[in-house]
């Protein structure tokens, strides 16, 4: 191979290694720094430009909501275990299993309603525009995922939009 070509290929390889090394080092340092100083609510402060007063109010709401959320989650987990037990290893959905499934659905709906109430309360603790953005974002993340699943299961159908 010609010498100039070897020199250029070596230079390109060194350049690629230098760039890739710097890129990954920069990325890792940034993720580590930002994750280290972040608490559970830091995303809200950054994303919606909240001040200390608003954050204090939201933190209070958050701390009030968490025990209730944990209690509901424990109830859902227990009901889920009951559903599994009622289904057993059989191939039929028994009346008891159907009742348990309905109860599980009710619990989930109740929990979702609590969650939405909490999101609304948090959005009201923010400036109006940010509050609207927050609520839209949270509804999109927490509720619309079902729609995506349903649409992917029945691409030809258009449930509930007629």
């Amino acid at each position: 191979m010609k010498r100039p070509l070897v020199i250029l290929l070596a230079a390109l390889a060194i350049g690629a290694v230098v760039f890739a090394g710097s890129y990954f080092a920069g990325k890792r340092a940034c993720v580590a720094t930002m994750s280290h100083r972040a608490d559970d609510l830091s995303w809200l402060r950054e994303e919606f430009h909240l001040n200390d007063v608003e954050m204090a109010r939201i933190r209070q709401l958050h701390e009030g909501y968490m025990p209730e959320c944990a209690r509901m989650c424990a109830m859902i987990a227990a009901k889920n275990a009951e559903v599994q037990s009622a289904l057993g290893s059989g191939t039929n959905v028994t009346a008891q299993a159907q009742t348990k499934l309905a109860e599980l659905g009710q619990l989930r709906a109740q929990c979702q309603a609590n969650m939405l109430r909490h999101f609304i309360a948090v959005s009201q603790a923010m400036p109006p525009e940010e509050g609207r953005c927050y609520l839209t974002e949270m509804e999109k993340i927490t509720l619309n995922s079902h729609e995506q699943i349903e649409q992917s299961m029945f691409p030809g159908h258009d449930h509930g939009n007629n």
Partner: protein
Amino acid sequence: MNPEDTKLSALLRQSRVSPALPPRFQEKVWRRIEDADAPANSASWLDTLAALALRPRFAYAIIAVLMLAGVLLGAQKGVNIAKQDAQARYVALEAPSALR
């Protein structure tokens, strides 16, 4: 010099056949002379680049630029990843996956 030799020389000169010159012979000769006098310009772009890469100042400058670009782009990507992680953490806390 012998007068006989002079005569012989003249006879010999007359008998020598001089071949006809190719067309535009003179012009071609001059062009070759000019080309030979001109400075060597045969280095290709590959040679030029290779020579440039071997210059320390140029090499250090390129490495510095690549490092800076890498760190900046990596940091930008890192900020986005950290933001997404923080959002995911918040959502997981407020809306457990069982409800989504």
